């Protein structure tokens, strides 16, 4: 027995999208979750690193843009200071009758405190030879400054004096009259301006204006003023003539105020440090402006004169080293070179990498979620697989039970299951089906009902076409051999249809025999009845004469006797059939004695010599029911008497033989009657068969049938030899008892003596 599943359709669908289940099963392997986790973590790391790189690059770019911005702001501011000073020079040259009032108006117009923060004032320093000092002091004193003097006092080769300084209030009063040539740093810048004719920026100094409170670094910007050939004041000519120098227009700056004015308070997250002089650029510094290279005349400037973040001034170098955003640029102005160190603060660096960190955090969260869900998927799949395995095992056990049970079943079974197409397809057959229909399961499994019908159609009896399976319950006759009558039943539920085939050959055969027997019996009863009925009616007819009446009465009597016999024998047969030996009373019987009693009963008074019993030759004991054996013998002897002439005799004798190593005892009845031909002998035991159908000999044709039934119950047999015109010999054989005694039994007297 085998069972197939419906692969055919399933295969067709998997062929079209076979990779999907493969991918799914690959994804559902338990180890794959870890692999995916590691892979995704690596990817996340790469993404974090890339994002960080981009952010840092971006931050650097912005930082550089801001340094550019700051740098250009400083440059523009310094250029604008220079322009204001040039304006002062221009005013001097434009006004030959220049006086202190005009200078004040100029400065007031410029509004330095408003437009040029950090600038302390605009001033004019006169160059004085030693012989000019006294006359200069006198001249200024006459202008309303009685305490004016050129300071510091002392004999020098060359003097200068701040003769004008606006606004001339507060701190600036301290500088009024100051000889800036007396101090080397200022002197260097002043002489450089005189010699080059260009604006000159001084090094870092402490301004004389400082009064001890909030002391700041200071620096000064000088523009030289010359006298031309006509004695007019003028700016530097095409060819600078230092000996014609008249003085300087200059501006002092306080560095912090200056830078705050330039940068405002918004240095943001950037710190900067300005050093006087060119710094030797270390190779790691990325950008160095070309101007710085060109103007790196001063060297060794290591101390900063400005720091935007004074609190961390001490650790500025450390910050610069630690920060990734660090840039050193040079600024050339007024003949001096400044080195400006910019550095992004830690905060800025951190702020720039928060996106990368967010990427990392989100990525890791997603990775973990992915890992968790894939692991859960794999766990679920394993669980489902275990459950499926358990279910499969259970269903296989159930199937095995079903198979075993159906294998033992005498009924054939077909199970159809509804498939996706709405067709019922065969999924199960049992051995009984294969045996009866001669079809192997592999021929049929998977077929639809219609296809199975075609297979079965050829097997049915030619006269009785099989109704299609879908018609449900039916009777089917298989051609065989052996011919079988099957009863088909159908049971159906939602998705299954089960057909049972029950072999009812025996029942239908019994039914058929029973009907046939009844028909025959009725016919046999009608035949004598026809005579009885007909003659009885004739007896009532007035035209029948006495002779005919007599004759009719005789026939009626005779046929009524036949009827009686018939009914008796039918009853006998029916009893034997229905009891089937259950009323069998076995006794240890001497068959010789049975024969004697039978002959005694049958011997007719008018012909006592016709029946003869041969004397016994040995013990004839058997385990039989004496009444039944006597009935059988009576039938046989009765036949012998009926079918032989009145002048012939019938001989009865008991015999022994051995057949199949078994002792048998037989009662033999020999007559010299009409005998039977071979065909009659063949049918002699059929019910209602008559050796002489003419009706002269009374009988129903059931006698020998009854004899055989009785002998069958005794496990005996009936032997019949006959020849037409010679006579018939019938022997009733029953199994003999083993001879328990060897005593000699005297032959009884001849049968005729008994009558």
């Amino acid at each position, binding site marked *: 027995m085998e069972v197939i599943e419906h692969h055919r359709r399933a295969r067709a669908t998997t062929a079209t999208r076979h990779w999907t289940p493969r991918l799914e099963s690959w994804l559902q392997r338990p180890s794959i979750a870890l692999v995916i986790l590691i892979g995704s973590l690596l990817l996340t790391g790469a993404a974090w690193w890339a994002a960080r790189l981009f952010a840092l690059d971006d931050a650097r770019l912005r930082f550089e843009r801001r340094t550019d911005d700051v740098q250009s702001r400083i440059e523009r501011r310094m250029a604008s200071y220079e322009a204001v000073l040039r304006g002062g020079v221009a005013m001097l040259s434009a006004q030959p009758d220049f006086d202190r009032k005009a200078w004040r108006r100029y400065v007031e117009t410029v509004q330095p405190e408003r437009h040029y923060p950090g600038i302390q004032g605009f001033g004019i320093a006169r160059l004085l030879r030693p012989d000019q000092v006294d006359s200069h002091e006198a001249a200024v004193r006459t202008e309303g400054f009685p305490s004016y003097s050129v300071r510091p006092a002392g004999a020098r080769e060359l003097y200068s004096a701040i003769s004008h300084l606006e606004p001339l209030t507060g701190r600036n009063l301290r500088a009024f009259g100051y000889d800036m040539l007396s101090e080397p740093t200022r002197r260097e810048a002043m002489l450089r301006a005189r010699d080059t004719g260009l604006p000159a920026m001084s090094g870092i100094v402490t301004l004389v204006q400082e009064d001890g409170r909030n002391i700041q670094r200071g620096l000064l910007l000088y523009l030289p003023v010359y006298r031309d050939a006509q004695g007019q004041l003028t700016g530097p000519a095409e060819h600078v003539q230092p000996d014609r120098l008249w003085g300087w227009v200059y501006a002092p700056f306080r560095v912090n105020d200056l830078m705050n004015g330039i940068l405002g308070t918004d240095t943001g997250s950037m710190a900067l440090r300005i050093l006087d002089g060119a710094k030797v650029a270390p190779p790691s510094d990325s950008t160095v402006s070309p101007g710085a290279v060109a103007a790196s005349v001063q060297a060794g400037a290591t101390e900063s004169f400005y720091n935007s973040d004074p609190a961390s001034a001490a650790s500025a170098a450390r910050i610069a080293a630690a920060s990734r955003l660090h840039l050193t640029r040079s600024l050339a102005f007024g003949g001096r070179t400044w080195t400006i160190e910019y550095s992004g603060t830690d905060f800025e660096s951190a702020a720039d990498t928060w996106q990368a960190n967010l990427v990392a955090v989100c990525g890791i969260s997603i990775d973990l979620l992915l890992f968790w869900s894939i692991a859960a998927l794999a766990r679920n799949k394993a669980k489902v697989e275990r459950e499926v395995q358990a279910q499969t095992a259970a269903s296989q056990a159930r199937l095995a039970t079903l198979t075993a049970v159906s294998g033992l079943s005498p009924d054939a079974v077909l199970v159809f299951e509804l498939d996706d197409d709405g067709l019922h397809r065969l999924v199960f057959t049992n051995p009984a089906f294969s045996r009866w229909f001669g079809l192997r399961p592999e021929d049929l499994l998977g077929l639809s009902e219609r296809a199975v019908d075609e297979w079965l159609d050829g097997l049915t009896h030619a006269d009785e076409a099989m109704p299609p399976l879908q018609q449900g319950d039916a009777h089917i006759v298989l051609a065989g051999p052996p011919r079988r009558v099957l009863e088909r039943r159908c049971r159906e539920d939602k998705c299954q249809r089960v057909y049972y085939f029950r072999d009812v050959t025996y029942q239908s055969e019994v039914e058929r025999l029973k009907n046939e027997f009844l028909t025959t019996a*009725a016919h046999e009863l009608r035949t004598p009845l*026809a005579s*009885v009925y007909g003659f009885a*009616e*004739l007896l009532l007819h007035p035209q*029948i004469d006495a002779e005919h009446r007599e004759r009719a009465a005789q026939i009626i009597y*005779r*046929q009524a006797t036949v009827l009686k016999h018939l009914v008796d024998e039918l009853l006998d047969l029916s009893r034997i059939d229905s009891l089937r030996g259950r009323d069998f009373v076995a006794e240890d019987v001497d068959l010789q004695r049975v024969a004697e009693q039978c002959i005694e009963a049958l011997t007719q008074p008018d012909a006592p010599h016709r029946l003869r019993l041969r004397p016994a030759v040995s013990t004839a004991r058997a385990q039989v029911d004496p009444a039944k054996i006597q009935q059988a013998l009576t039938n046989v002897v009765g036949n012998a008497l009926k079918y032989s002439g009145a002048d012939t005799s019938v001989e009865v004798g008991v015999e022994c033989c051995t057949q199949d190593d078994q002792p048998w005892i037989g009662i033999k009845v020999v007559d010299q009657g009409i005998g039977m031909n071979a065909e009659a002998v063949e049918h002699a035991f059929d019910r209602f068969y008559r050796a002489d*159908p003419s*009706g002269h000999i009374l009988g129903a044709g059931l006698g020998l049938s009854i004899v055989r039934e009785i002998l069958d119950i005794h496990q005996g047999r009936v032997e019949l030899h006959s020849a037409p015109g010679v006579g018939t010999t019938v022997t009733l054989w029953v199994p003999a008892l083993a001879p328990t005694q060897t005593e000699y039994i005297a032959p009884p007297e001849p049968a005729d003596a008994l009558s």
Partner: protein
Amino acid sequence: MRRWRGHDVPMIERQPSATMNRILIVDDQPDLRELVRMTLEIDGHEVHEAADGAGALQAVRQLSPELVLLDVMMPGGMDGIAVCRALRADSTRRRLRIVMLSARGQKVDIEAGRAAGADAYLPKPFSPRQLLDVVSRLL
């Protein structure tokens, strides 16, 4: 005597028919042949007997009866149906009347008799009066 009336069905007194007809009864049972003979002789018919199919055909050839009563179930090679067919096949005996007698009274049996060409079908046991009625109707 009016004992005839003791029957379920009242019977009328029958007069011998004017013409005497020759009738053949074919049956394997002597008692039944005698019943038919005795019955038909009431009406003054001339009755001949045959015990089997072969005898029946021979008797018909020799006697040329007007009517044959045929038992269906008979021993030997020919049963009543076969005899009936054989008689009907003989075109010279168009006027021959055939009545089938049988212990089998089923519809199929009657149909078989009609198909074979019988004029009437009498199931056994039959009443002699019935037989007389059938015979007089056919002749």
